[in-house]
Structures are given as C-alpha cells and as structure tokens.
C-alpha cells in the first residue's frame, strides 16, 4: 500500500499534470478514509506535518476567527504542551490565556470552568496522554457557547471522536500510522482563519505540499486500528488490570487509574522515595520500555505539569502504554518484576521503611 503510494503519489497534488492528478486522487482518498473513520465530512479533514502543528493551527486558527468577540483562550491545566505553548504564543501577542484546574483524577473542574466566564475559545483534550483520563466533553460542550478545540491526539483510533468541537487535532503515529502526519479537523461553518503566514496555495489549512504517501499510510493504519479496536481494548483492559493489581500491592504507591472513562491501553503510577530516572533505567535494563513524568527524566527540571495539576506524587513516576504488538507475557513479567525493582531502588536510596 505504502509502496504503491510512493510510486504513484510523489507529485504535488496541486499541479495539473497527470502525476499530480494521481497524487490528488490518492490524497482525496486518504482524506475520505480518515473522514469516514472519524465520522466527519471529508472537507473538514486536513493533513498537517504533526499532531503538534494540528493543535497550533486548531487553537490559534479559532482564536483568529474570533478577534471581534474577544481574545481569552481558556484551556485545562493538563492539556498537551503543544496547546499550552499555543496559549503562551497567543499571550505574547497581546491575547489572554488562562487555565482551568482539574480534580485529583485529572478531570476538568466544571465549576471552575463555569466561574471563568465565556472565553473566545475553549481548549479541552479528549483524553490525557499521561494518565489516560477522558475529559467530560459532552458536559463541557453543552455548558459553553464558545468554539471548542479538542486535542484528540491521545484517543483517536482508540475511542470514538465525540461531537461538539469547532476544531480538533489528531496524530497518526498515535494510532500506529507513520510519524510526520497530523490531522486538523475544522467543522464546516466554524470561523477559522489561518493564524500563520501561508503560501500561494489555495487551501490555507494545509501547510505546503502534503506528504501524500504518508497520509495514505496513516489512513490505512487508522482503518486497521478501528477494525481491531474492540478486541485490543478488551485484551488491554485485562492486562492493565493485572498490572494495576501488582502495583497496588507495592506499599506507598499511587496508581492513577480512574474508574470513569479512560484510555484502555495505559497505566501510570508513582512510587514514593523512588527516583524516576533510576526506575526507568532499571526497567529498561530488564527489557521494558516505559515512559516517566518525573522531572529527572525530562529535558527540563520541571516535573510533569499533569501530575502537578492533579496534586499527585511526581517522583518515581512511570507510564506503561500497551500497543497492538505488546506481548501479554511481557506484561505479566513486568507485573512480576516491579515489586522487587521498587524495593531494591528504595533500599539503595536509603528510604525509610
């Protein structure tokens, strides 16, 4: 599929010659497949160079369409850094940017949201990529007249896209597609203006010449992800529950696994007195590739803004995400090894018992 796309889809889809018409056909096909998978109109779908860029275009483009109504951007404290950085960029250019707190599970505080008054644009993610909790988007959308931007990067391919947004973003590598393909959705009729310098091309939502073969591969991967979504979600739910039981048995450990709606493939937890970097390194040595929100594992000195907003323990943090190729035997082995690893690291650090 990708090979055929590479052979036929190399040309600039906006030219008039035959290879260009071929590329245009393939790009339209990719757009139609993605639209069908997400339950949206094909003309609402634009391929971008990344999920991050789709977030920037979505947030700032809605703000640009609302300049006459106001300049306040409101977002949850636990948005992806791409959204928070878009907010800071907006602020640096004279706009206003405020954040809404979340509860201990990482879910938006609806009372606090209501107390903020009506923003020009409201940005709320579909699900949090660090702890997996789903935001109550139906209630959020029902409680505001402001256009809603939904960062759906963490959930697209895993959970259905909810309604109520004026713009939304997704990222192909999150559903098993290639890196370098994001998706910007702009609802038909929504006021959206290109917030960045464009080029001479007609479509100002797209950023230059799309990577047509990668967009096709992304569309095929999304279709495949939806076909196996139910089966994988059930399998992952069992494995995550198994891991959760093992982690809960470790003393002085917080598991961030909310009872409400959440991503099916992910579990995050923090272990008191454990250095996050040491934990990730030790698990890596044992053959487990996991992520961490602890400050010492990040490029900055700051701990995860998500864990901090939740008031959760930020050190000794680990996030385990399962993919379609994750072997259940590896998950069982991880559940078996974790208690010993944590105990060893605590002893090495001289932690109190």
């Amino acid at each position, binding site marked *: 599929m990708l090979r055929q796309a590479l052979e036929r889809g190399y040309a600039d889809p906006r030219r008039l010659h035959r290879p260009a018409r071929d590329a245009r056909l393939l790009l339209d096909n990719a757009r139609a497949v993605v639209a069908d998978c997400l339950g949206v109109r094909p003309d609402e779908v634009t391929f971008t160079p990344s999920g991050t860029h789709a977030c920037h275009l979505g947030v700032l483009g809605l703000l640009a369409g609302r300049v006459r109504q106001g300049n306040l951007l409101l977002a949850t404290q636990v948005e992806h850094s791409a959204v928070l950085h878009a907010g800071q960029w907006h602020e640096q250019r004279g706009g206003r940017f405020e954040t809404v707190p979340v509860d201990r599970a990482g879910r938006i505080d609806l009372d606090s949201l209501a107390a903020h008054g009506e923003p020009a644009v409201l940005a709320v993610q579909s699900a949090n990529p660090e702890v997996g909790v789903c935001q109550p988007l139906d209630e959020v959308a029902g409680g505001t007249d402001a256009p809603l931007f939904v960062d759906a990067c963490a959930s697209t391919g895993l959970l259905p896209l909810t309604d109520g947004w004026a713009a939304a973003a997704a990222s192909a590598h999150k559903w098993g597609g290639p890196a370098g393909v994001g998706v910007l959705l702009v609802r038909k009729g929504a006021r959206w203006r290109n917030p960045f310098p464009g080029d001479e091309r007609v479509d100002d939502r797209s950023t230059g010449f799309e990577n047509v073969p990668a967009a096709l591969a992304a569309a095929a991967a999304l279709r495949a992800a939806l076909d196996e979504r139910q089966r994988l979600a059930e399998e992952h739910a069992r494995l995550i529950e198994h891991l959760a039981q093992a982690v809960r048995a470790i003393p*002085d450990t*917080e598991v961030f696994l909310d009872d409400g709606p959440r991503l099916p493939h992910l579990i995050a937890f*923090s272990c*008191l*007195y*454990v*250095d996050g970097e040491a934990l990730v390194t030790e698990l890596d040595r044992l053959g487990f590739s996991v992520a961490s929100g*602890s*400050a*010492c594992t990040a490029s900055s*000195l*700051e*701990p995860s803004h998500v*864990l*901090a907003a939740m*008031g*959760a*323990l*930020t*050190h*000794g943090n680990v996030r385990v995400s399962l993919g379609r190729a994750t072997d259940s035997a590896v998950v069982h082995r991880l559940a078996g090894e974790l208690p010993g690893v944590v105990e060893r690291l605590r002893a090495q*650090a*001289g*932690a*109190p018992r």
Partner: protein
Amino acid sequence: MSRVDLDCRGVPCPRPIIELAKAVAGIGVGDTVAVTADDPAARVDVEAWCRMRQQEYVGEQTDPDGVPTYVVRRVS
C-alpha cells in the same frame, strides 16, 4: 512544640522527601519539620507525601534568598 529544619537546597527529588520522612519519624506528634528545597518537584511532592502518609501539610514560606520552605506537622 518544636521544629526541625532541613536544608535541601540543590538536592533533587526524591531525596528531600526521603529526608522529610526520616525527620518526621524522629519527632513527636504535634511537632513540625520545615524542609527548604529548590527542586520545583518538592512543591507538589511534600504535599503528596503528607496525603499518602496521613500527616498535616501546614504550608509554604519563602526564605530571604527566595527558596521555598515547606512545613509539615506530625499528626499520627
């Protein structure tokens, strides 16, 4: 009511939390430990430790050099 001061300037988490836990174990119920730490993770983690270990988080003070001090009271 006595107070133990811990200077954890320049010490990354989780070390200030480990020192806090050891200090709290050594004081009486009602006494306090004040941990001075410039690692930004300490702001979140001291309070989280209090919640997990059922101790009281009294609050945050700022030292003359701008470094925050977090005060914890032993209640159990």
